[in-house]
């Protein structure tokens, strides 16, 4: 009999098994990081309460682009979570897992009979990762929201905007993936603790707090000085000029001048050396920032963004083109590093977004996202050791498909 078990991929978390009861983006992102570090990550999916990203914009559940983007290298098992037998099956499966990640609506796991106490009863050393907008308990934990709500509540949105205007906030896609990463880190810490002591635990992650953690020093500004920080366009207290400036063809260049030497290099490139003597220090540049930005913009506007980046880099000035989505997918460095990479996906080759790291003895990343229930045979047959008769019975009852 040939095994349905996934091939060994190596990596630091090889041998770790993660079960996901997740939806949309943040929970799946945490699971993806584990998969990229070598863990075996199994998504429990239920046709009866399918993740919207499985069906969004497509008729074929196995071809949903959003789902495929966030779930490479995972396994999928199909279990009806609306039936008691399905929940019992998940509890059986959890006895073979090290980590559970859930980001269902507040209270949902408890109603399903899959809360921490229930899981701990069958798997005492489980690492149970609970993800909620405000965390799992407290006066506001009943509230729900989407990623831009996390950013608004956590203090990020208030700090993004044009000077003297209402806050504009980060792009609407921001927050879920940051939140997923924080959850993955906390879970990895708990795993390491378990390896050293045998003890599992409950990990309770708050999306809103994740956002505040991304502006920790701004919050410290308030708690130390009483100043409430506000959005200030692209300005920076320690650098000037610091911003995005228009180039030809509607493109933009980002320039950050962190030293007087870089400023001299910039004005030399601009062929306006007098600016160096006029505004030799950060204090002088901050005092005349609007005027400097005006002159800089006049100069950049006549140039091609990429050529200007090359010119400034040669002179030692920190500069980068503001990348559009065309620039991003064509970024040769991202391909060279293996950030974009090709994997096997249903007999075809597919390009995916890989990990943010390279490391020695890294996990291999070989496969795209799973088809719905693609790994039922492995999970029910090999992990749970269910007989063919039993599996047929479960399938006939609609518990599995």
């Amino acid at each position, binding site marked *: 009999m040939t095994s349905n078990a996934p091939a060994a991929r190596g990596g630091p*978390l090889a041998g770790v098994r993660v079960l996901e009861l997740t939806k949309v983006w943040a929970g799946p992102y945490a699971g993806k990081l584990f998969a990229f570090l070598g863990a075996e990550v199994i998504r429990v999916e239920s046709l009866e309460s399918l993740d919207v990203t499985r069906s969004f914009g497509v008729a074929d559940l196995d071809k949903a682009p959003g789902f*495929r983007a*966030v779930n490479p290298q995972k396994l999928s098992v199909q279990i009806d979570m609306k039936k008691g037998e399905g929940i019992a099956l998940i509890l059986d499966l959890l006895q073979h897992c090290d980590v559970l990640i859930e980001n269902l609506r507040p209270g949902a796991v408890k109603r399903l009979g899959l809360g921490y106490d229930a899981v701990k009863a069958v798997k005492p050393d489980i690492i149970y990762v609970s993800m909620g907008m405000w965390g799992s308990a407290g006066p506001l934990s009943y509230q*729900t929201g989407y990623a*831009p*709500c996390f950013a608004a*509540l*956590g*203090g990020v949105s208030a700090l*993004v905007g044009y000077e003297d205007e209402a*806050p*504009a*906030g*980060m792009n*609407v*896609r*921001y927050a879920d*993936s940051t939140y997923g*990463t924080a959850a*993955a*880190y906390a879970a*990895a810490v708990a*795993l*390491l603790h378990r390896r050293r002591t045998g003890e599992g635990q409950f*990990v309770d992650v708050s999306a*809103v*707090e994740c956002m*505040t*953690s991304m*502006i*920790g*020093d*701004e919050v*410290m500004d308030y*708690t130390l000085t009483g100043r*409430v*920080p506000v959005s200030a*366009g692209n300005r920076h*207290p320690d650098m000037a000029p*610091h911003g995005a400036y228009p180039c030809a063809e509607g*493109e933009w260049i*980002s320039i*950050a001048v962190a030293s007087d030497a870089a400023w001299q290099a910039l004005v030399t490139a601009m062929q306006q050396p007098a600016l160096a003597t006029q505004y030799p220090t950060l204090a002088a540049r901050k005092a005349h920032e609007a005027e400097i930005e005006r002159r800089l913009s006049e100069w950049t506007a006549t140039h091609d963004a990429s050529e200007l980046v090359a010119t400034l*880099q040669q002179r030692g*000035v*920190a500069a*980068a083109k503001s*990348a559009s*989505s*065309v*620039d991003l*997918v064509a970024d040769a*460095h991202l391909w060279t*590093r293996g*950030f974009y990479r090709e994997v096997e996906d249903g007999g075809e080759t*597919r390009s995916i977004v890989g990990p943010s*790291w*390279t*490391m*020695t003895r890294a996990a291999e990343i070989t496969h795209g996202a799973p088809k719905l229930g693609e790994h039922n045979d492995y999970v029910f047959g090999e992990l749970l050791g269910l007989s063919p008769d039993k599996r047929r019975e479960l399938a006939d009852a609609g518990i599995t498909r």
Partner: protein
Amino acid sequence: MSALRGYRILELAEGAAGEYCGKLLADFGAELIKIEKPDGSATRALGPFAGGVNADAQERSGLFAYLNTGKRSVTLDLASDAGRATLHQLLGRVDAVIDDHAPGWLASLGIAAQTLDQRWPALVACAITPYGQDVPDERRHAEDLNVLHASGWAFHTPSASDPQRPPLKGPGRFLPSYEAALDAALCVVAALYERETSKQGRFIDIAKQDVMASRVDYVLGQMIAGDMDVSSNRRAFDLFGPAGIFACRDGYAYIWMSAPLHWDALRQLLGDPEWMRSFPERWLERECTPERVAQCRHYIAEWLKGELKEDVAARAQKLGLTLVPVNDPSDLVDSPQYAFRHYFADVAHPVLGMARYPTVPYQLSATPARIGGAAPRLGAHTQAMLKELAP
């Protein structure tokens, strides 16, 4: 005991990325030995400043105080032979090293991916840089601003960008650094996990550009696979609809609307106003035209400017409408939910005094994270460390 107690980690970093990574590890009880050049880490020169103008200049940085809680400070001149010899002694006694200097800097000290197995076989080495150790020459000079632009986030921020106005940098000064620190800490802990049995170290190369680009994998993954169009449009990452930030009487609120249940909740909240009746019942999903979005936003703006942000959010949430206040740091310090979770911790610093510090966004039942004391004075632990290393 907390989870990382017993691990010794050497921090060579002096930027927000490496120092925040070290802090994330220190909060779980790891022993963080921070190596500082004789005049101190670069972050000591960055604000916010407090503690009075007469205080020691190197100890007035609120940024340094925040990023370096629970660490020990050892000054070492790595430009000198003696300094490097001490560093090499230390490297033999630690489990991991964290750095965020320019690519190649760690290699110049003898720590590199290619030679780690020979020279420091049990060391976990993690370097955080803007574009990775293999940076092309034309990207050698980069600040966090540039990374945010190279990753695509800035070009697409804010949502519904006006193509005539500049893309925005994101919140504060260090978003890519904080984000990269999370990935770095995750990889370091994963490497320590495997090392428990293999006894082998590992070289980890974190690129901030890749961290930020991976944060938009839901969109970028579709683009790289050919499932979503790429373009030079500033709105290529956007979702469309009336969602957005609106002014209230006492600040701002964010409202999200994408489904009929949100529309119904809004109708209930507003008492079935005349203007909503002119919209088709399921317009948000099926007939979300720019004209309707603009009209809807106009009425929402008119309504919200007379409301109080906390009050209207609480009423909306009860009806299932996703409306939340846009909080600033003062709101966060006053948040009952943050108080419930003890998100802020009071830390006494010898120069800055007592202040509230943000902690971490996860609670671990068996091994909670804790701030292990105020940030160290420059070189506070140099003598003790040299004594420990003496033969």
